[in-house]
């Protein structure tokens, strides 16, 4: 037997031993783990107990909360209810009921104004008349302001409130309702503000303004008020108020046409993440560097997960429409027109 004839079996044995003794770990794959499907049309109290960490959920026409025993209680919201991590509001005629998270405490308020709940701040608004006020839990008006135009959008963080108006201006109010900053972006044929968001602490204000072109603008707090630090013309123009939010790391998420748009402070650029269908909702998880989107196509929703860098991790499809998205304490809650889905996250 020649020398070469031994070489091949020896090499084969060597490789087999190498792979057995020094296996290369396969990278874990991120997966979503469906935990529970909650029918939202079930009568109150018929739902099975849940021991999740999520306290509230909200669908298109229904909302609910998990009581102290973990039982899910479904309420009819008729699309006008509002919800935050600390309170939720039921409306019946001109009476608002502000409920605490346990559902035990209730504060009825008589008003014909529309409620907007931001954590524990209750703003009462008549968008058509350009009227905004803040109410305490007893219904006392803490401050009010009649603005010079229709209100198209608003956001509130900490003790600040920012309002977008149809006349093209944004206005920032402090905790006492004093107007502390006003700004009107130009550069478009039609002046109007279609979306506005505040960062935690009020360090940044993001807005979408105008038609022809519609522009995304980022303002940052400087010594004397706010200054624009970034702007970009958007490809599509929306005539409706747009989804726009800023997370704790001052990443910005906004609705695009068939895509989600994502702005990172570090990159100072606006990235488009393609979605199957129309944008419905979105949320960032800055601690994990991921971005979640819900979109809808032909009455069916999809949940898409991207890295902040724009790599698509996965897309899940659902047999339901009109989803809203909520991510809390590691759980994802999707609430649609018929069902809510509680989804865990993990690696496989």
């Amino acid at each position, binding site marked *: 037997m020649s020398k070469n004839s031994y070489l091949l079996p020896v090499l084969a044995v060597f490789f087999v031993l190498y792979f057995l003794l020094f296996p290369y770990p396969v990278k874990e794959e991120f997966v979503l783990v469906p935990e529970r499907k909650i029918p939202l049309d079930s009568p109150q109290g018929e739902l099975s107990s849940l021991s999740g960490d999520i306290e509230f959920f909200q669908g298109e026409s229904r909302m609910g909360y998990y009581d102290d025993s973990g039982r899910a209680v479904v309420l009819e919201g008729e699309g006008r209810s509002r919800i935050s991590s600390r309170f939720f509001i039921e409306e019946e005629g001109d009476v608002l009921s502000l409920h605490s998270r346990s559902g035990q405490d209730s504060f009825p308020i008589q008003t014909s104004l529309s409620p907007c709940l931001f954590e524990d701040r209750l703003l009462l608004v008549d968008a058509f*008349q350009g009227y905004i006020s803040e109410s305490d839990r007893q219904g006392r008006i803490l401050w009010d302001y*009649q603005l010079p135009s229709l209100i198209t959008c608003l956001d509130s963080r900490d003790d600040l409130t920012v309002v977008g108006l*149809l*006349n093209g201006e944004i206005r920032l109010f402090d905790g006492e309702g004093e107007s502390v900053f006003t700004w009107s972006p130009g550069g478009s044929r039609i002046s*109007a503000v279609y979306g506005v968001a505040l960062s935690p602490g009020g360090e940044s204000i993001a807005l979408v303004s105008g038609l022809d072109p519609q522009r995304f603008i980022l303002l940052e707090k400087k010594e004397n008020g706010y200054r624009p630090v970034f702007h970009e013309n958007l490809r599509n123009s929306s005539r*409706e108020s747009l989804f726009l939010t800023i997370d704790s790391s001052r990443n910005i998420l906004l609705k695009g046409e068939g895509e989600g748009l994502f702005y990172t402070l570090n990159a100072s650029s606006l990235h488009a993440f393609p979605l199957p269908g129309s944008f419905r909702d979105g949320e960032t998880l800055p601690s994990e560097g991921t971005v979640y989107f819900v979109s809808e196509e032909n009455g069916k929703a999809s949940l898409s997960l991207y890295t902040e860098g724009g790599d698509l991790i996965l897309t899940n499809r659902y047999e339901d429409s009109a989803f809203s998205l909520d991510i809390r304490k590691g759980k994802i809650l999707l609430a649609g027109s018929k069902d809510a889905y509680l989804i865990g996250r993990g690696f496989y």
Partner: protein
Amino acid sequence: MKPALMLISFLGVLTPAAALQWPMEGTELLSGFGSPSGPYVSTGMELTGEKGIVRPYQEGEIIYMAPSGIVVLEHDNGFRSCYGRIDPAKDLDNRSYLNEGDILGEAPEGLLFSIRDSRLNRWVNPFYMFSARDDDIRPEVEDVLLRRNDTSFPLSEESSPPAGTYRLLVKISDRVTREGAPLLPYSVKIRYLGQTLFALSLDSLSHQDGKAYFEGAGKIAAQGLFTPEGYLDGGEIIINQGKGLIEVELTDYKGNRTLRSFSLNRR
């Protein structure tokens, strides 16, 4: 400017406006421009109409739609018309421009309607924009009070209130039809001893520092102009001893006029 030139200018402004149509056929007014509405002053009016169908008052571009039932159109003249509490027509999502006569949607519960002058940054009284309505009903002075602290002295044609400083409160209304809702008349003038004590005309509404102001016969703060009981606060009046005369003159949008006089024989 000479009176004749002023009249020509006035007609020149009115003529194109008179061709405009109300956004609902067979319009009935439920509330008018500038009326106090809870915590704010109404920037427009509330209407109902036959069949509840809403059409744009003038051709224009759709620049805003809200799920809460608001649609806003921009017009060539720099005006924006705002329609609230509306169920938009199904094809509205795919259209960006509406011509006169196109259907905007339906407002079975009553339409909120307002017009804004973008150039002046003011709300305009919609009554100015439309063809004149049949209206031969004069505005009405329902009640006049002198109020000091918590005490009120109702005035009749001849009254004898004690001398002193008062707030002059006037309850007024104007109806377009006999069964129609009470609205505010277009202009209010109050004279005391021949001098104008108070003058208001509802031409437009502007906003400054979170407060609304009527623009027309001067600039008058709208908030607090009406008491919770619905009286117009005509301001402070000092009644001295002797004879005096208070005149309240109201004019509606059609030009119908009412003048009520209250003689004072002060003690």
